[in-house]
């Protein structure tokens, strides 16, 4: 190992001396490669269990482990609840009462299979999976940090992800496109858009003398972390500062992996024909021409006030600054030039100083003009269409190992290479091109020990509520070992054998008896296996924030199923508006579309702004898009209750839900109750529930108040 590495380095760098030599300590780290997840999965035999409960190979593995404990699985969920669970799960949306009724009534042997196939073929399937993948890659529509500017073209990556799941793109292709679409399929717009994966993380962009090398290092750290988390299921960035404390990853490995991205830079690459480009540019020019006269008028209103402020500030200048300023430019000494420049900046005014001075009628005129300008901007033509992706530089800068990750403390240079602990490493080209392609092809090779395991584990978790490896992004030694290693390996090998077919694995899980179990409570089993590692029942799952919002809109009948396109801003609370950072004039920080039906789009299409999170969504554990989120948290606290009871969003949905019920039932209370329960819970109300509601109405409770209570009810908020 030592010799091979050194020779490789010498050849690549042309160095006389080996640039990196493995120490004894390094070799000890690498010896950890016998860890299970670094060995390729071996396909186990499916346990032979003759039991009608076994519908799929999955069931055989689970039942075997349950029988070892002399436990039996939980009974199957009743049909109405089953269709509610699977429809929410697969589409993120509720089943319609007609769908529930049809499924409950369908006595054919393959009724459930037909349901599964219908749901897997729906567009909503891709939207639901899209959200999961966007969580993993910490997708957002803005850069983060103080300016947090919009990424105008990022949404095309979001749409690409949704479409890929809808079309059941083979996962190996999906992986390759995101890592190296530009290298492997040059000229292919979709593959180029896919490389937005590498730019999905936050990026610090700000003015002034920032440390460019540090900024670049952060970009590379984000790219490397993304690959580690999303595809490898390893905490590569633990090795940024030192050899990994638990896994067979050297600090050199980390920087060799980083070197694979050293030649890649973020670029908004146009994806239009010359004619389209010309048309888009012409439209932009025309728009600017429309706005210019308004801008000029605003400037004209401000000018006298600005000038007056300047004159006043001039009087306050210390004599040396004033003297320098008064001297003709060409006569100023070097020192006076500096003083004059300082004097200029001392006499400048900030926007608020100027605005606070403007009196009527100028004040109102200016406000009206700015409003007019913002209105025009709402209708601004889109920029020239581009992929928010990456492209290669002319030459890749040399990558160094950095002492404690500090870009100022460069140690040995390293070549681009794959982590040493893996047996099936491939050569990574030394030149700038093809590095990412090599990485992608290595990851997507059938023998790769991690890529398939990590993805089948994600599919499993998304349906079952917990992964076979519970630490979704960490298959290393600090992560948890798989609860069912053989099942994991069987699924991983099946996945690859089926051509990396996501839907096939998904379908098998959904068809399994394990998936169809009820969420029974059992004191003894809960004591022995509180985390349900044996899958003796269904996991408790609360709707995530997006599902909750989408369901409220579906319930009220307002959901706008329009798909794709630029992200949507929804109305926000004034308190939240105040928290948007700006040093500029705080008007028009959150421009809203004139088309209010846009506000009822699915949550995946809402603007995901890193520093401005929608309060109800964060209260329900929406991740902050700063680091990979492989699995949503599910916390319970009072602020959730406040937003789901009192926010304008919740209150408005309750009103619209009530209006919908009145629309279909008139004043017929029994019909209203029945319909409400059918829509919200996929079932009819029980007699006790009817009595409770009737009493509520007799006491003066309104229908919209009943609707609000229903929207807050545990049964509604949790998956069956």
């Amino acid at each position, binding site marked *: 190992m030592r010799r091979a590495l050194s020779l490789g380095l010498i050849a690549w760098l042309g160095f006389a001396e080996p640039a990196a030599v493995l120490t004894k300590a390094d070799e000890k780290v690498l010896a950890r490669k016998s860890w299970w997840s670094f060995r390729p999965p071996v396909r186990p035999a499916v346990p032979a269990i003759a039991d009608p409960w076994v519908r799929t190979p999955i069931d055989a593995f689970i039942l075997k482990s349950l029988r070892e404990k002399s436990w039996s699985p939980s009974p199957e969920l009743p049909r109405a609840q089953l269709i509610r669970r699977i429809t929410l799960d697969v589409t993120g949306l509720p089943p319609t009462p007609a769908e529930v009724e049809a499924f409950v009534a369908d006595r054919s042997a393959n009724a459930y299979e037909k349901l599964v196939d219908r749901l897997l073929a729906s567009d909503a399937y891709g939207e639901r999976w899209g959200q999961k993948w966007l969580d993993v890659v910490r997708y957002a529509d803005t850069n983060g*940090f*103080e300016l947090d500017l919009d990424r105008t073209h990022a949404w095309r990556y979001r749409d690409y992800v949704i479409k890929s799941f809808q079309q059941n793109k083979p996962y190996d292709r999906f992986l390759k496109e995101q890592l190296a679409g530009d290298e492997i399929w040059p000229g292919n717009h979709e593959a180029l858009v896919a490389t937005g994966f590498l730019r999905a993380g*936050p990026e*610090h962009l*700000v003015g*002034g*003398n*920032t440390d460019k090398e540090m900024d670049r290092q*952060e970009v590379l750290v984000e790219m490397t972390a993304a690959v580690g988390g999303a595809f490898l299921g390893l905490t590569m960035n*633990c090795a940024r*500062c030192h050899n990994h404390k638990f896994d067979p990853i050297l600090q050199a490995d980390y920087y060799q992996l980083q070197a694979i991205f050293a030649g890649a830079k973020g670029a908004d690459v146009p994806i239009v024909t010359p004619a389209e480009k010309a048309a888009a540019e012409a439209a932009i020019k025309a728009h600017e021409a429309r706005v210019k006269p308004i801008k000029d008028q605003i400037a004209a209103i401000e000018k006298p006030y600005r000038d007056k402020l300047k004159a006043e500030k001039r009087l306050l200048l210390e004599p040396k*600054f004033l003297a320098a300023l008064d001297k003709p430019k060409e006569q100023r000494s070097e020192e006076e030039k*500096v003083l004059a420049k*300082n004097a200029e*900046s*001392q006499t400048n005014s*900030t926007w*608020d100083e100027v605005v606070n001075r403007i009196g009527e009628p100028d004040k109102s005129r200016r406000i009206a003009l700015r409003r007019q300008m913002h209105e025009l901007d709402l209708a601004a033509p889109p920029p020239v269409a581009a992929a928010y992706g990456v492209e290669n530089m002319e030459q890749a800068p040399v990558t160094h190992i950095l002492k404690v990750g500090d870009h100022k403390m460069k140690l040995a240079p390293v070549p681009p290479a794959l982590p040493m602990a893996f047996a099936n490493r491939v050569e990574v080209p030394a030149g700038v091109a093809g590095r990412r392609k090599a990485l992608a092809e290595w990851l997507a090779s059938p023998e790769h020990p991690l890529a398939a395991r990590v993805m089948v584990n994600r599919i499993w978790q998304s349906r079952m509520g917990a992964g076979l490896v519970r*630490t979704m992004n*960490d298959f290393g030694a*600090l992560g948890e070992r798989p609860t069912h290693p053989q099942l994991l390996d069987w699924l991983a090998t099946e996945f690859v054998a089926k051509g990396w077919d996501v839907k096939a694995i998904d379908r098998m899980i959904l068809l399994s008896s394990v998936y169809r179990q009820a969420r029974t409570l*059992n004191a003894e089993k809960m004591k022995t296996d509180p985390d349900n590692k044996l899958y003796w029942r269904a996991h*408790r799952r609360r709707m995530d924030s997006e599902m909750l919002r989408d369901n409220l809109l579906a319930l009220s009948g307002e959901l706008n199923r329009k798909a794709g396109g630029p992200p949507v801003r929804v109305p926000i*609370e004034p*308190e939240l508006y105040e928290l*948007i*950072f*700006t*040093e500029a004039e705080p008007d028009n920080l959150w421009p809203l579309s004139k088309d209010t039906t846009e506000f009822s789009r699915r949550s995946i299409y809402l603007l995901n702004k*890193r*520093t*401005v999170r929608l309060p109800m969504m964060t*209260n329900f*554990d929406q991740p*902050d898009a*700063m*680091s*990979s989120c492989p699995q949503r*948290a599910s*916390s*319970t*606290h*009072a*602020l959730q*209750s406040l*937003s789901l*009871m*009192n926010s304008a969003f919740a209150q408005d949905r309750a009103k619209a839900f009530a209006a919908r019920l009145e629309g279909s039932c008139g004043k017929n209370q029994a019909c209203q109750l029945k319909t409400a329960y059918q829509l919200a819970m996929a079932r009819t109300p029980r007699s*006790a529930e009817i009595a*409770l509601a009737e009493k*509520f109405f007799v006491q*003066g*409770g309104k229908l919209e*108040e009943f609707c609000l*209570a*229903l929207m*807050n*009810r*545990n*049964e509604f908020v949790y998956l069956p």
Partner: protein
Amino acid sequence: MSSSIFPKHLIPAAISRRDVLRGSAHGFGALALQSMLAQAKSANPLAPKQPHFAGKAKRVIFLFMVGAPSQMDTFDPKPMLKKFEGQKLPASFGKVSSQFTDGSTPILSSPWNFKQYGQSGMWVSDLFPHLSQCVDDMCFVRSFHTDSVVHAPAMYHVHSGRILMGFPSLGSWVTYGLGSESDNLPAYVVMPQPEGTPEGGTPCWGSGFLPAVHQGTVFRSGANPIMHLKSPMAPDRQRRTLDLLQKMNQMDAEPLDSEMAARISSYELAFKMQTSAPEAVDFSGESAATKSLYGLDEDRTREFGGRLLLARRLIERGVRYIQIYSGGGPVSIQWDAHSHLKKNHEKMCGMTDKPIAGLLKDLKSRGLLEDTLVIWGSEFGRLPMSESGNGRDHNPHGFTMWFAGGGVKGGQAIGETDDFGLYGVGQRYPMRDFHATILHALGLDQNQLWYLHNGRNEKLTDFGGSVIKEVFA
């Protein structure tokens, strides 16, 4: 803290007919209910927790001066600057580049005089006529440093230990470690400047990868202190709707199900918060003398003083951690004096000096200062060289923050900067030491306070800091 996190009046209601039936059939009943309540309690992530060891401080008020006050004009006197006024920084310092200047601008001496105050003789500039009276309770640390010359990353560094966005903030770690002593107010309260948010924005009080329950809650003065607090419905209508909801939720609850119990309880807590939060912001019970102590009777101090008085009222009611910002929004309402240092600092100190002194005095007279840690600080300090002739650019290399209360030994200054106030010399303290020290004051061991996130045991102090032991008595 009430004896049960589960509201008392819910207990009889929770024994639904279903439970009684189940009780008779399966031997549950009262026993099952008790276990349900215990589970609701254990499921409450904000239940008070024991610290790792006995800490003097029980709670924190962190006063954050947005935009960075200048250390050599406030608490770290540098007479040498007078001597070098208008000259360049000695070449021995090397190249000192900041966000907007390159180190070539001349030295600017402080426009203010420094004097010694108190028994301890601590040096304070003329900017703080009130706070200078409290120096015997204040411990200055003059050689803190952060890792960025840019506001937002440096703010993240002070708030969360990293220059990156997205890590849990100090207050999140504290409530994660200690829970809350209030069951009807947020555990972690944030009060920004009304004119706008600090440059780092809401991630400054975010919970990062910690559960959302640990994020800071913005608290405002006025009738609606917390977002979504107030129901648009009439109170009787709201209560009736809530009762309906709770009855339905009890139908869904089962004795073994702690999560359902916790959810039922969260609605009652929310309802209680609707009365307790407006009660907290109601100052009508405060004496004129107290209001005057905080500067509520003067225009320039009224707003900030009001927030500090509110802070005292909140900690009295069990709030664990309060983050208060002086400055935010337009540059003219920040401490970011790139030009017009004199005008800027006079304005910002004028707004905060009396209220902060009032807070310290008030806490002390009520016996609250003993177990309340008060921190004053910022994302960095400022350079000894000038910018625009009469301002200063950012300096993360050595700057002052101070502590008071919560077991802190007042009347001392720890650490120092060089003769120009540019770099910390001798013992310099990174943010991880700052954080380790705050956790220590609260009885929390930085190494025991961790959270597993994506395969790593994440800690506030990352690689670990050193507690600045000298801070404590």
